[in-house]
C-alpha cells in the first residue's frame, strides 16, 4: 500500500483523526491507549493505591474502560477493580447488556456486583414510567445516581470510573447551556464531585477526551464490540436531539467537539469555584445527600405511592 504522508505507515489505515492523519490498527491502538493513560495522569484520576469501582453497562464505552483499567490493574496490584451494574428494568434492553457484562467480567476475572431498581426500590423503571409523567432519562438518572453513590460507599470504593466519552461530555455541556443550567456544568469534567467527602464517591472519566467513534473503533479491533443495543427510552430524550445536532455540526466543522471540551476545561475551575459545595444537607427520609429536605428519589417514590392509592 502506498504510504502518503497522511498515513502512519504502510499498513492499511482504519481511522482518520480530525487532524487528517490516518492510523493503522497497531498505531491506532497505541494512540488510543496512550491518550487514555495520559488523561488519567493529566487530571490525576487514579492514584497508586485504589479500590476502584467501574460503572458497567455492557456497552462499548464501559467495556473499553474496564478492558483498559484491567491492564492498569495488572501492572499495579494495588489498584483493585470491581464492576458495578445497575439493572433499571428496561425490557428488551438491559437483559442483553447484563449478559454481555457478566460474560466479560467472568472472562477477565473482574468481580461484578449487580443491583436492580426492582430489588432496591421495589419497582422497575418500566413500571415507574406507567405511573409517573416524567421523562424516562430524568427518572432513570436520579435513581441510577442515587444507587451508584450508595453502593459505591457500601463497597468502600475510593473512586467510581464511568465510561463517559468526549461526545457524552460535549452533549452535557451544551444541554446545560441550552437549559440555562450552568450550575450542573460545574459538576462535569474528567473528575467530578468532591475529594475526601465521605458522602460522595468521586467519579472519574478516563475516556473524557476520546470521541465516540474512536472508542467504538478501539472496541471493534479489540473484540469488545457486541451486537448493537439501544435503550428504547433514549430516542425520546433531549440528549438524542443535542447528539444528532452536534454530529451534524461536527461533520461540517471537524474538531468542534474537541473545541467545546477544551474551552470548557479552561473555564471549569471558575465554575467549580463559583458553585463550590457549601453545607451538604441530607434527605430526611433516606439519609442520602440532598439539596433539599427530601431528595428527588424519595419525592418520586412518594409521588408513585400517592398515585397508586388513587
Amino acid at each position: 500500500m502506498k504510504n502518503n504522508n497522511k498515513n502512519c505507515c504502510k499498513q492499511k489505515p482504519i481511522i482518520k483523526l480530525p487532524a487528517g492523519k490516518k492510523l493503522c490498527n497497531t498505531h491506532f491502538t497505541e494512540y488510543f491507549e496512550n491518550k487514555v493513560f495520559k488523561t488519567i495522569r493529566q487530571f490525576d484520576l487514579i492514584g497508586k493505591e485504589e479500590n476502584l469501582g467501574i460503572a458497567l453497562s455492557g456497552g462499548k464505552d464501559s467495556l473499553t474502560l474496564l478492558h483498559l483499567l484491567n491492564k492498569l490493574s495488572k501492572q499495579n496490584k494495588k489498584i483493585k477493580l470491581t464492576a458495578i451494574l445497575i439493572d433499571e428494568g428496561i425490557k428488551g434492553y438491559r437483559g442483553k447488556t447484563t449478559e454481555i457484562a457478566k460474560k466479560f467480567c467472568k472472562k477477565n476475572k473482574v468481580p461484578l456486583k449487580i443491583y436492580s431498581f426492582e430489588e432496591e426500590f421495589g419497582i422497575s423503571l418500566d413500571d415507574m414510567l406507567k405511573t409517573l409523567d416524567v421523562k424516562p432519562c430524568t427518572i432513570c438518572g436520579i435513581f441510577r445516581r442515587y444507587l451508584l453513590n450508595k453502593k459505591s460507599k457500601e463497597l468502600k470504593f475510593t473512586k467510581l470510573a464511568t465510561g463517559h466519552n468526549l461526545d457524552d461530555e460535549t452533549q452535557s455541556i451544551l444541554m446545560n447551556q441550552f437549559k440555562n443550567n450552568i450550575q450542573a456544568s460545574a459538576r462535569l469534567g474528567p473528575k467530578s464531585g468532591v475529594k475526601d467527602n465521605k458522602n460522595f464517591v468521586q467519579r472519574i472519566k478516563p475516556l473524557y477526551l476520546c470521541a465516540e467513534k474512536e472508542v467504538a473503533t478501539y472496541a471493534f479491533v479489540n473484540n469488545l464490540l457486541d451486537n448493537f443495543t439501544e435503550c428504547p427510552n433514549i430516542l425520546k430524550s433531549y440528549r438524542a436531539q443535542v447528539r444528532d445536532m452536534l454530529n451534524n455540526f461536527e461533520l461540517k466543522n471537524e474538531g468542534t467537539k474537541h473545541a467545546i471540551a477544551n474551552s470548557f476545561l479552561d473555564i471549569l475551575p471558575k465554575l467549580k469555584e463559583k458553585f463550590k459545595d457549601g453545607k451538604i444537607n441530607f434527605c430526611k427520609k433516606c439519609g442520602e445527600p440532598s439539596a433539599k429536605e427530601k431528595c428527588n428519589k424519595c419525592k418520586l417514590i412518594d409521588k408513585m405511592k400517592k398515585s397508586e392509592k388513587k
Partner: protein
Amino acid sequence: MKLKVFYDRENKEKTIELDGNMSVKDLLEKMNINPITVIVSKNDNIILEDEKLNDKDDIKIISVISGG
C-alpha cells in the same frame, strides 16, 4: 451494482443500488447516515470512507452512538 449491506442499528440487511466505482462515502450518503456515527467494515475489517466497493463485498455498518 447492487450491494448487500447489514446495518446493525436497524438489525437488518438492505440491498442498496449503487453506480460502479462507488465509495463508502457514497454509500453512507445514499443511506442518509452521518459517517461520524458509524464504522464500516468489509469482510470484518474496518474501511475508510474513500474505499471503493464492489458487489461481492460483505459490508457491515456498525453504529457507534451510545445506546443508553
